[in-house]
C-alpha cells in the first residue's frame, strides 16, 4: 500500500539503523512524545536495531493515558444517567476510573457507544432529540479540530441536546514540564507528526532554544522513526539544538491554519491535570464564550468533583521517561491489561500496555530471539 510499504521497508530501515550506529559516539536519551510512535517502536522492535548508546524514553503522548482519573469518574457518572447516550472513541472504554470503567457502566445498563468521529455523535443528537448526547472529547491537538467542529456545528445548527466532556491537552507545555523537572533524562525529542500536522512546528522553536534540546517532528512508520532518531542524534553529536521536520509529507511549518482558527474560536487555553503527572499550567483546552453552553461538566453538575489517584501506579514517572514500565513492581503482576492499575496499561498506545504485549516474555525468549535477530 502506497505511503505505508515504503516506510516499512527492511533495506531502508537497516540502512537508517546503520547510519545511526555510524554517527553515535556517546550515550543519548531521546523521547518520542506520541503514543502512536511508542506503539510502532515496540511493535516493530525498532529499539533492537539501535546501538546500545541510544535509549528511547516513552513520552506522555497517549491521550488515553494522561486523562486524569477524576475525568474518567465524571464520564462514568454522566454515562450512568438514563437520559444520556455517552459516546467515546473505542480505547477510552477500558480505562479504569475509581469504580469501574465505561464497559462496566454499559453492562449495568448505561447507553455507551463507540463512535469514530465527534460528528457521528452530533448526528446521534439530531436523530435522538429526546436524549442527551455526550461526547468524550479526549486527545491532543490532533483530535481538537474535529471536536471543535462538532461543538461549532451543534451551536450553528441549534442542537441543544449535545454536549462534550472536554479533556484536551497540549504537547508543548508537557515538553516544557518534562524538561523543567529536576530528574529529567531527556536530551532530544521526536515530536508527534500528527499534532504538528495541525499546529505546525513554530511553537517548538523557543523550547529548543531555551532548553538547548533538538526537536525532530517525526512520523509513525518504522523508517520515519529511525530517520527521526538519526536527525536527532546528528544534532546531539554536533551540539546543535534545532527544530527539524522529518515528516514533511504531512507537516508544514505553519500547520493547518483553518483548523487552528476553529480551535481558537471554540476553546481557550487552561491549566489541566494530567494523570500521574499532576496539573500543568496552560496545558489544555476548555470551551469558551457561547460554546460553554455545550460543556457536559456544567450541564450534569460534575464540575466540582475531585479524586486522588492511586499511589501504586508509577504511570507519571513512565510518562515523563523517568522509569521504564518493567521497573514498576506491579507490572505484569498486579497490573495487566485485564486488570489495569493505570491508564498506561490500557490503550495500545500506552507504554505499559505496549511493553506487556510485546516484551512480557523477553526474559524467556531472549536467547532464541537474539539468535534469530538480524539473520
Amino acid at each position, binding site marked *: 500500500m502506497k505511503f505505508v510499504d515504503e516506510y516499512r521497508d527492511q533495506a531502508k530501515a537497516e540502512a537508517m539503523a546503520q547510519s545511526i550506529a555510524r554517527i553515535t559516539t556517546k550515550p543519548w536519551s531521546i523521547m518520542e512524545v506520541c503514543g502512536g510512535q511508542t506503539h510502532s517502536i515496540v511493535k516493530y522492535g525498532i529499539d533492537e536495531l539501535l546501538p546500545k548508546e541510544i535509549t528511547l524514553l516513552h513520552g506522555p503522548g497517549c491521550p488515553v493515558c494522561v486523562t486524569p482519573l477524576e475525568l474518567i469518574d465524571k464520564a462514568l457518572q454522566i454515562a450512568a444517567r438514563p437520559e444520556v447516550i455517552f459516546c467515546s472513541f*473505542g480505547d477510552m472504554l477500558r480505562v479504569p476510573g475509581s469504580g469501574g470503567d465505561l464497559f462496566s457502566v454499559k453492562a449495568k445498563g448505561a447507553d455507551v457507544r*463507540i463512535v*469514530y468521529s465527534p460528528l457521528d455523535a452530533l448526528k446521534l443528537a439530531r436523530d435522538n432529540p429526546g436524549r442527551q448526547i455526550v461526547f468524550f472529547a479526549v486527545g491532543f491537538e490532533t483530535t481538537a479540530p474535529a471536536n471543535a467542529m462538532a461543538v461549532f456545528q451543534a451551536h450553528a445548527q441549534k442542537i441543544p441536546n449535545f454536549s462534550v466532556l472536554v479533556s484536551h491537552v497540549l504537547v508543548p507545555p508537557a515538553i516544557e514540564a518534562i524538561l523543567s523537572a529536576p530528574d529529567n533524562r531527556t536530551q532530544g525529542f521526536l515530536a508527534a507528526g500528527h499534532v504538528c500536522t495541525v499546529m505546525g512546528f513554530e511553537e517548538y522553536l523557543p523550547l529548543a532554544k531555551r532548553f538547548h534540546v533538538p526537536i525532530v517532528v517525526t512520523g509513525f512508520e518504522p523508517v520515519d522513526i529511525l530517520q527521526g532518531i538519526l536527525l536527532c542524534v546528528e544534532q546531539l553529536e554536533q551540539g546543535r539544538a534545532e527544530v527539524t521536520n522529518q515528516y514533511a509529507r504531512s507537516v508544514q511549518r505553519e500547520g493547518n491554519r483553518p483548523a487552528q482558527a476553529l480551535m481558537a474560536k471554540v476553546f481557550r487555553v487552561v491549566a489541566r491535570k494530567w494523570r500521574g503527572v499532576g496539573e500543568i499550567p496552560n496545558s489544555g483546552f476548555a470551551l469558551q464564550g457561547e460554546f460553554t453552553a455545550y460543556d457536559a461538566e456544567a450541564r450534569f453538575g460534575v464540575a466540582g468533583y475531585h479524586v486522588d489517584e492511586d499511589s501504586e501506579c508509577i504511570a507519571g514517572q513512565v510518562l515523563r521517561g523517568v522509569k521504564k514500565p518493567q521497573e514498576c513492581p506491579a507490572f505484569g503482576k498486579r497490573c495487566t491489561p485485564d486488570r489495569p492499575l493505570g491508564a498506561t496499561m490500557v490503550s*495500545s498506545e500506552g507504554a505499559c500496555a505496549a511493553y506487556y504485549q510485546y516484551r512480557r*516474555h523477553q526474559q524467556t525468549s531472549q536467547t532464541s*530471539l537474539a539468535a534469530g535477530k538480524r539473520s
Partner: protein
Amino acid sequence: MADNCDAPFTLNCPVPISHQDFVTLAHGGGGRMMHALLDRVVIPAFGNQPLESRHDGAVMNIDKGRLAFTTDSYVVHPLFFPGGDIGTLAVTGTVNDLAMCGARPLWLSAGFILEEGLPIATLERVVASMARTAKAAKVNIVTGDTKVVDRGKGDGLFVNTAGIGIVEHNLVIAPTSVRPGDAILLSGDVGRHGVAIMAVREGLQFETTIETDCAPLADPVLALLAAGIEVHCLRDLTRGGLATTLIEIAESSRLHLGISERGIAVEENVCGACEILGLDPLYLANEGRFVTFVPAAQADRALQILRAHPVSATATRIGAVSESPAALVTLQSRIGTKRILDMHSGEQLPRIC
C-alpha cells in the same frame, strides 16, 4: 355505519390472524401458527427425509468409524453484511469446525431463537442462505427447533447449529500432534470478515465494499487427507484472528511457532481500513481461512493441493514449528525484527488518533 346499511346482516367471530408478516409470540407457542411457519419457511428450504419425518430427532445410518460432533451459536449483528449473513455463518461456522477435526461434515441441526416482531421475510432470507450454504458444503440440516422470545429480549434472530461429521482417517488432528519441524500453512489473506462486519456495524464507508471471506472449508481439508498428507493440526481462524489461533496452538503444544509477516497476505482495502482505525489485521476475525500443520517434507505438495481449491487458492507457507522458546509465537516483521505475538485482552478497540 351509514355506508354499510345496505350490506346483508352477518355475524363473524374474530378468528386469529393466521398469516403474519412478522414473527409473533404465537409462532413459538407450539400450535398451528408454529407449524405453519415451519411448513412455509423452514422445512421446504432444508427439505430432506429425516427432517420431513418431523420426529423429535433425526435417526441417521452410519458405517463403522469415528464421529465428530460440534456446536456453535451465532449472534452476529447486523444479520446481513457484504458477502454473507447470519445464515451463511451458521452453516459454514459449524461445517468448518467439523472440517478442522478432519471430518467429512454430514448433518446439521438448526435452532432458531426469534424475537417477536422479526419480519418473516428476514427469516426467509436467512433460511434460504442456510439452505444454499448447506448445499455448497454438502451437508443436510436434519433436525431443528424454533423458539420466540418477547420483543426486546433478542436481537432479531439468533441461530444455533450443531453438526456431525464422519472421520475417515486414523490421524489425531490436534495441537498435541504438532511436531518441531512442521510447516505452518495459511489458506489465504486475512482480516476481511472482521473489517466487513465493522464497516456495516459502524457505518464506515470505504472506496470499495469489503466482503466477508465466509466459506466452507471441508473440500480442501478432505483433499489433503485423501492425498495422504499427514496433517498434524488444523484450525480455522475465527474471532481473535490468525494471531490468537496460533497462540492457542503454541500454548497447547508447548512449542514455538515462528512466522513471517511477509508470508501473510492482507488485501489492500483491508490494510487501509486497519491503518485508519488502528487495528492489527492479524487479530481480525475470519470465517473462511484456516491454518494447517504438516511435516516440512510434505509442505509443497500440501500447498499444491490447497491451491487447487478456490477457497484456498492463495495458500502460503507462513512459518515453521520449533522446540523453543516453548509456548510462544514469534513474528518476523517486515523490517526484519522479531516480536512476540500475545493474546489481546478483549476485542480490538479503534484508537483515538
